[in-house]
């Protein structure tokens, strides 16, 4: 399955947007870990803006970062959102409430608890009516999202925005699922070699024989290893200075997703 990349978005500790992050990924600028500010998106109506939690803000900011480097309108794009954990804060608050005597679940928390909350807020913010899906593949959520977005792009012959996001759970869930770092990544994929496309991608699923591609820098490797969206970093590093290269992503317990990157 082969498709093309028109633009990229990236937010994470010390990774403040795709433009600023490229040199960090390539190792030509220092990686200074600092929180990325995630304000509520201005594009949302005030009532919705107030209700957004961090995962929604992260996913929307990553998607908008990719759009900022594109001439395409967000309302024309099909979208694929992928995340291992969704909104752990909301799950924690609901479970605390349900363990108490009153069980007064907040309606806003409940509708924010659905895994497709970021997709819902995104469609409202961008007034986007095209197809949108929301996936989970545990540690392999990014690879699963890349496969789904690629298939949609190739089969429907349409531009597709892939947004991957993951952030730490609060305690006591954190001890059971210790994710680190607030990381959001986005790829705008197209089926043809357009003028804006700067890299080609070919995907193959193979039985796992070798270890996945890692990051050389230890601080970035830590993000890759400890955050399911961080698993995208080796591919994003390849896209930061495209050249013919192969990235291996872990995909499910027994497979590798082989990503052949081609410079255009």
């Amino acid at each position, binding site marked *: 399955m082969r498709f093309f990349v028109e633009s990229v978005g990236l937010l994470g500790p010390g990774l403040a947007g795709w433009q600023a992050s490229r040199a960090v990924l390539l190792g030509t600028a220092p990686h200074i870990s600092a929180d990325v500010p995630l304000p509520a998106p201005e594009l949302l109506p005030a009532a919705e803006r107030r209700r957004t939690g961090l995962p929604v803000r992260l996913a929307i900011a990553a998607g908008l970062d990719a759009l900022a480097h594109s001439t395409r309108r967000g309302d024309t794009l099909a979208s694929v959102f992928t995340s291992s954990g969704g909104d752990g804060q909301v799950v924690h608050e609901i479970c605390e409430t349900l363990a108490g005597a009153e069980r007064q679940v907040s309606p806003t928390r409940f509708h924010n608890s659905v895994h497709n909350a970021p997709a*819902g807020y995104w469609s409202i913010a961008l007034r986007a009516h095209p197809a949108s*899906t*929301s996936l989970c593949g*545990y540690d392999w959520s990014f690879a699963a999202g890349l*496969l789904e977005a690629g298939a949609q792009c190739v089969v429907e012959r349409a531009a597709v925005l892939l947004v991957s996001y993951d952030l730490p759970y609060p305690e006591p869930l954190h001890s059971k699922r210790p994710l680190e770092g607030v990381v959001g990544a986005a790829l705008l994929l197209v089926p043809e070699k357009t003028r804006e496309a700067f890299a080609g991608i070919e995907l193959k699923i193979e039985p796992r024989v070798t270890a996945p591609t890692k990051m050389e820098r230890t601080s970035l490797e830590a993000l890759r290893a400890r955050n399911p969206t961080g698993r995208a970093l080796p591919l994003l590093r390849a896209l930061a200075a495209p050249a013919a290269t192969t990235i291996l992503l872990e995909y*499910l317990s027994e497979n590798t997703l082989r990503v052949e990157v081609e410079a255009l």
Partner: protein
Amino acid sequence: MNPLTLTHYTLTSSLGAGLEAHVDALRGRRSGLAPCAFESARLDTWVGQVPDQQLASVPVSLARYDCRNNRLAHLALAQDGFDDAVSEARGRYGVHRIGLFLGTSTSGILETELAYRHRDPKTGALPADFEYAGTQNNFSLGQFVQARLGLSGPAVVISTACSSSAKVFAAAARMMAAGMCDAAIVGGTDSLCLTTLYGFGSLELLSPAPCRPFDAKRSGISIGEGAGFALLETASMQLGGDAIQLLGTGESSDAHHMSTPHPDGLGARLAMEGALASASLRPADIDYINLHGTATRTNDASEDKAVVGLFGDRTPCSSTKGATGHLLGAAGIVEAIVCMLALREGFMPGSANTEQVDPALRVHYLLDNVQQAPGRVMSNSFGFGGSNCSLILGRAG
């Protein structure tokens, strides 16, 4: 899209375990709803619960996945010869070439809810035996079913609230068309939990009586649980007269509100139009529509506008949620299989519990079963976040 063949399928819900139990219940217009006595819930509502005693533990080798949601999946997979059909498919295609596309909205969250009652009083820690990846994570269902069926091809869980296990058909069809797998298992499971019961309660969407879709006196949803699975193969497979095909899929976003549908059913209409376009069919080609029909005031009014706007007021329609309750993340697959049964058995199911159709609603709503064989049917599934999906299924003949 190129039609795909649904060669084997099965489902379980409060109506019973397996295809024949569902045919009997639909023919007899029986409802599986009963006053809510689930766990410790104290809510004035009805639910479609699968009896606890039917939910056997998952196999010992897969014990880390043991939770109500995966027990429901385990129960369904053992019915109607589905395990054997997958076993044959494994031999035919190879374990790496069969994709797995499943939907759930809440996965095994019930385990987390229960674990929060047993936190360490000093540290707040969850009990040592709480298994996050095997239960709460949405992909728990994917990992469990993949291991249970001995598959290792592409696998993913779609979680878009109440459209989750309808969208699996579209994802599977695309992945097959892209050549990433040669066949696919599609399905979904959702199980009762306190998050959805109290959550829908907080939105004042739970009916105090058995839900009555499209009724003038409808007063909200009844939550149900269940599971369904189907084996999707290319149409070149040998086609018997009973073979059911997936003809089209359509997906859209409301872009309107997180928990309220677009008042004119804009997203619903876009999904139905998308399904017709993907099947190269016109509205007049559809003989029956299985509505999303949740029985909330707003859903039914909005879906009515969308259906009448596209099909007019003569296409027979009904919601089967009065029989099963609203299966949330499993609604898409269970209602798609209800449609397959309608195609196979040659009837259109009427609506359980609905007494008098709301005169403000204009669709041709079926209160009673119609003994007339539909050739092509549509199934609608719409979810929170404005996530919509319509499927078109038909007889191969």
